[in-house]
């Protein structure tokens, strides 16, 4: 018998941990965000039936900005990670490496861009 070599996929284990956390975020926080931006705001329903609009959600206070960052970044990570894996299950297994690379690229760029806007707005005082 040949010698066994097993290597713990430590990086993947951590990425999976983030993926799971993202799943929690997408399940518990994303629905209310979509409700607010896609139903409440365009149709002037509660809570956007008064003076406030979704921009208040982003820049109204630090907590709102944090909510946006956590919800969007977590959902993006979870969604992309899972979708690229689903694609490998419908005949694209041989392109796995490429799918992973593209997936992580989208996640990385998306989160950096999101963080950049929020940090900029925080630093220039748009977020109060």
């Amino acid at each position: 018998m040949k010698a066994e070599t097993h290597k713990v996929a430590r990086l993947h284990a951590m990425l999976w941990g983030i993926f799971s956390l993202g799943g929690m975020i997408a399940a518990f926080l994303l629905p209310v965000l979509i409700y607010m931006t896609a139903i409440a705001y365009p149709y002037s329903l509660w809570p956007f039936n008064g003076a406030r609009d979704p921009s208040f959600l982003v820049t109204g206070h630090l907590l709102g900005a944090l909510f946006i960052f956590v919800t969007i970044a977590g959902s993006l990570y979870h969604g992309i990670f899972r979708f690229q894996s689903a694609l490998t299950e419908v005949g694209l297994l041989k392109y796995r490496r490429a799918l992973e690379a593209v997936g992580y690229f989208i996640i990385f760029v998306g989160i950096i861009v999101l963080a950049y806007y929020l940090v900029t707005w925080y630093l220039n005082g748009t977020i109060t």
Partner: protein
Amino acid sequence: MEDNKRYPELRRRLSPGWWTANRHYTMYMVREWTSLFVALYSLIFIYGLSLWAMGSRADFLNFLKNPAIVGFSLIALVFTMYHAATWFYLLGAVAPVKIGRSRTKPWQALVLNLILLVIISYLAIWLLVLR
């Protein structure tokens, strides 16, 4: 171990459409593809913010009122809710809680977490918008 395959190997390979073979597989694949909508909504939101960052706040708000975006977001909401429900169900399946001698069932986790989702959603609105 010695290799004694004298005949060509016969193995039924999965076709890309394997998930149509039974209802469980189909439900599974639907569940996995909901993640596409979760991801797309996130990307669209980031794009909306970029309109704001490179233009004005009104650009962002107009973008949110764009019928195409509203329409897509509504579909995304349906799939996100489906994603949430299946996630809660799986939570119950992989992390059953022991109460006395019995273990909680996945559907109990589903119901409990849906209630929790409503509470969290209300709290989020109250904390982030109404306060």
